[in-house]
């Protein structure tokens, strides 16, 4: 049953992405100022939104663990955070490549990219913490608290870096190239977002099952060593 869900999600996501690719390349006109590279937005922004939402849903799942003490919720939280981390990396890399064309250099501390980088660092720390703890309950507890701190902190990080950049202006990645996006250009963005969310869901389901397997292995090992 689960495998079927995963496969269906992946298939639909793949179809949407393929269809969209055609649309992005052939039907959407070049953006006035930025040219062809602008199309990277169709991956950059959906990946960003997916990972961001993922981190927050991961936090809610972690809070769920703290309330219910069900280790499955912890597995879900860890899986969501990991998949979100992968999407955040995609966001960062595509943003950097976008910047390479727009600004001529790979990185200039654009507020959005910088905040994302901080996000990445915080969640690297999250996984480092998880690896360092053996006991599954302690691991679940501590990483839950860490993800709560992280999600609250990210808002402050975003705001403060934004404010820092308004005082010390630097290059900023413009999504809306001067005014709103033309109506024809916005739709593929949301279709791609849907596809990425489905892909993320499929990956999360796979990872959650792997986490459950890990717990089972631990339990069996303890069972075996008890004799």
């Amino acid at each position, binding site marked *: 049953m689960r495998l079927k869900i995963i496969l269906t999600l992946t298939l639909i996501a793949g179809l949407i992405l393929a269809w969209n690719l055609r649309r992005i390349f052939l039907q959407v006109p*070049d953006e006035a100022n930025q*040219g*062809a*590279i602008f*199309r*990277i937005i169709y*991956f*950059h922004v959906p*990946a960003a939104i997916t990972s961001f939402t993922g981190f927050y849903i991961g936090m809610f799942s972690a809070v769920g663990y703290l309330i219910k003490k069900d280790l499955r919720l912890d597995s879900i939280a860890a899986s969501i955070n990991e998949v979100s981390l*992968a999407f955040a*990396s*995609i966001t960062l*890399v*595509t943003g950097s*490549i*976008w910047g*390479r*064309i727009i600004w001529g250099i790979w990185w200039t501390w654009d507020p959005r990219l910088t905040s994302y980088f901080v996000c990445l660092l915080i969640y690297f720390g999250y996984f480092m913490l998880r690896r360092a703890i053996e006991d599954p309950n302690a691991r679940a507890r501590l990483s839950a608290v860490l993800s709560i701190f992280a999600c609250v902190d990210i808002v402050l990080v975003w705001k403060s870096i934004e404010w820092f950049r308004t005082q010390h202006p630097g290059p900023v990645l413009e999504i809306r190239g001067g005014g709103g996006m033309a109506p024809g250009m916005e739709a593929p963005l949301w279709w791609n977002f849907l596809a990425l969310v489905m*892909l993320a869901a499929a*990956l999360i389901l*796979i*990872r959650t099952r*792997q986490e459950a*397997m*890990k717990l*089972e*292995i631990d339990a*069996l*090992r303890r*069972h*075996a060593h008890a*004799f």
Partner: protein
Amino acid sequence: MSPQNYNFMFYGFTAAWLILILYVISIALREKKLRQELDRVKRMVEEGEQAKH
């Protein structure tokens, strides 16, 4: 637009897909390792049970 522009657009798309594919591969590898480990531990438990009886 300039050819460099198009080149980088393809680099961008390639990079996005590459990261995704690498991540999926890492998941698949982990799956294999976990299954092997699970089978091994299950066998260990069974041998333990048999040895007891």
